[in-house]
């Protein structure tokens, strides 16, 4: 359960977005989204480098596809 301070942070940020030009808030959003994906990509690339990692990767992929199909 998230506490009240979490929603307050959401509200403060939304107010900033509302009152500032896109050029001031968009880079922060882009950095967060890109960094999240890049970190995940790096992790999967690391897994690919070892046999054990490749097994884990195979399990993750199978699990993911199976989840989507059912």
């Amino acid at each position: 359960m998230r506490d009240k301070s979490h929603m307050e942070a959401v509200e403060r940020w939304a107010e900033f977005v509302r009152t500032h030009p896109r050029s001031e808030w968009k880079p922060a959003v882009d950095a967060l989204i890109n960094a999240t994906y890049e970190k995940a990509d790096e992790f999967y690339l690391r897994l690919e480098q070892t046999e054990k990692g490749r097994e884990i990767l195979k399990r993750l992929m199978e699990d993911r596809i199976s989840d989507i199909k059912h």
Partner: protein
Amino acid sequence: MERGVGDRNILDAFAIDFCKVLERHAKYIVVSGFVAISHGRRRTTEDIDTIIEKMPFEIFKKLHEDLDINGFHCIQSSKVEDIYDYLERKDSVRYVRKGTVLPPEMEIKFVKDEIDEIQMRTRKKFALTGLDIWFSSIEFNIAFKEELLKSPKDMEDARHLRIIYKDEIDEHFINEIKKMIRILRLRNER
């Protein structure tokens, strides 16, 4: 591979590339999390939810082939007949960039009821997002998040959108949508 370019992050680039193809074959709307994220909400998502108009198999086949040519593949199946079956059964299908089964992914569903039809009729493009993409209206997104989805993440998305559009939101319309959600969606779930 450089996935986010210039003013476009990874999700923006994925959505733009996908919707460019979609636009050639179907009326569509992007709904839910990506609407809030495109309006500056500081979070990310693995899937972009999209609703498309119902279409005959032959038209869908052309859409699927165009997606294939433009570097997207469906995770559930490569057979277009199977993919169309998913949609006909009111399930979603998921497309990702070729060469991976990893996100971001586009989750697509057919219009399923009167609420979706109204969402489609009242779709909008939002200058603030800087994206040439059709979205469902802010009122629809707020109503779904507050009345149906209700997770902390969804409630925060709704709050974010309420603040961004605080002088423009049609509260009466939100309440009407919530009524429809209770009748058409929540009643069916009980």
